[in-house]
């Protein structure tokens, strides 16, 4: 397939972005919203992997390029797995408990897109302690 104009190239660029999107580190260093997902043993056994995949899928479908989903180890709240922490630049991180697959949509809609944490799922943590 031949690329016949700059516009066509740009279109292909958009389509190809998927391939390298996960690697946007360093150079550009734009501020990202981070979604950390606890993926230690108890997290996985209570469905963190499905949660993570649900995040990936929905964020991808909605083309939310400024969000990074990062699997992390034990967050420390095994009783409320799967746990998900949302870090929005400049704001206090929010930790959610019991985030099964079906709760993902809510978090994306209200918190990530709307900027309002989903109150009833929050685990209160004092992030200052660390």
């Amino acid at each position, binding site marked *: 397939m031949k690329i016949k104009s700059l516009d066509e190239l740009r279109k292909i660029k958009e389509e190809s972005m998927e391939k*390298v999107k996960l690697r946007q580190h360093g150079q550009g260093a734009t501020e990202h919203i981070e979604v950390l997902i606890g993926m230690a043993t108890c997290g996985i056994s209570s469905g963190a992997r499905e949660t993570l995949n649900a995040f990936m899928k929905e964020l991808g479908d909605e083309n939310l390029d400024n969000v990074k989903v990062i699997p992390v180890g034990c967050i420390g709240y095994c009783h409320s797995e799967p746990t998900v922490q949302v870090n929005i630049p400049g704001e206090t991180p929010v930790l959610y408990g019991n985030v099964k697959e079906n709760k993902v949509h809510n978090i994306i809609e209200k918190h990530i897109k709307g900027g309002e944490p989903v109150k009833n799922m929050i685990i209160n943590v004092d992030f200052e302690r660390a």
Partner: protein
Amino acid sequence: MEKARTNIMVCGGTGCLASESEKVMKNLQLIAKARGYADEVEIIQTGCFGFCEQGPIVKIEPDNVFYVRVGPKDAKEIIDEHIIKGRRVERLLYKEPNEDKTINKQEDMPFYKKQLRVALRNCGLINPEDIYEYIAVGGYEALGKAISEMTREEVVEAVKDSGLRGRGGGGFPTGLKWEITKKQESDVKFMICNADEGDPGAFMDRSILEGDPHSVLEAMTIGGYVIGADKGIIYIRAEYPLAISRLRTAIEQAREAGLLGKNIFGTDFSFDIDLKFGAGAFVCGEETALINSCEGKRGEPNYKPPYPAQEGYWGHPTCVNNVETFANIPPIITRGAEWYASMGTEKSKGTKVFALAGKINNVGLVEVPMGITLREIIYDIGGGIQGGRKFKAVQTGGPSGGVLTENELDTPIDYDSLRERGSMMGSGGMIVMDETDNMVNVAKFYLEFTMDESCGRCTPCRIGTKRMFELLEKISDGKGTMADIDALKQLSYMIKGSSLCGLGQTAPNPVLSTLKHFPDEYMKLIKDVDTPTNNDHAKNKVKVNA
């Protein structure tokens, strides 16, 4: 689930491949598949990350974790711990030498902190064998912009305004070279990429070609448009098989996408690129020798003028540029001359890639803004001298350059200040020596190299370097006299003054430079430095062992 959530990037540069990174990658793929994660993680082979000393390198995104010295056996733990459980494999993280601290993020590592990657922007980031990854990071936009939105004059102006100078050693302003070639009246012109890279210790061009081949193809095509050439040639030494194979793939993909060939971007500009192979002779990197070699003749230099821009490949105007020079072109076009000129010093703009080698902790490839000091390169990026020993000297500019010493550690690195101090930027080889290195041996090493590599055309270069080498051997064997030192100096000036090409003209530099900075080391080896015996007033008499 068809969308990958993690990218595992495995270095596929020559250094890491030599330490089994191919196996690491295969194992990662096998284990990811066995665990049912094949769709969630994508494993990509990239170009060199620069930190070859610590290879094989494996980087995981978006987690931004950087693993070093990863062996095939570590693949299991990376998948099981990191990918499946989200726990970092501590023992594979980089540890600061002399400090008991692990660092997991690439940008926190001192090795990368002072670097600014322009020419190496995509090395270690994209899969060099996938044109779409190059396009995804902005590839071929500069070409599109240049040929469909800019006049040839505007492109020349941009390159001139950027202040970019040739990275192959001479430091000639690239925009000016393009302008001169553009002005020649001829229907047939050529754009040549010099990928000979003969300097001992240098591997920046190889890494760019292996890690980001499309950037060179793109820049050559832009250059072809500017000077009015429809044909490009990459002259590459046959000892670079990986670079050659990646270039071949890239050329094929570019042709398929219509980015090489006829009517590029639907304009009436056509351009294509061929590869030509060199046998790996240092002198073939000299541009006129390179052109002779391309024509199938012996790789011997010609007198200049005429310059290649006037009469080059088969007598047609030809522009020869270095690999790294080309790699800087696309960002200059897309981000602008001003952006480029904002980096570096007044007369040396932008960044320079150096191949750090020798007695330094972090051996590897570094790209830094011009004007950074030697101290910053050696201590901050290079992590200092191995084994905590004392720094003695650094050879820059390969066999054409000279040594810089402790007094010059705070010299800002640019073309002119290196030359003022009797060395050269050269192509960017940087060999660091510590207190245990002997400077006479260093001089001997480089001289032996140029002696072997002399094409033999000029008597002073062919025979003079041999004589110099013999004198150095005599001195290091403890049989030399002061007269030999004088002879060395005299030969040096004569060879410099009467050789046809840059090889001969610079061959004596390592000797002159070590003589100047470390005369004591020569004197220690000389017999009877200044002790006339009997009535003999001859200053440098040789003792006769009767």
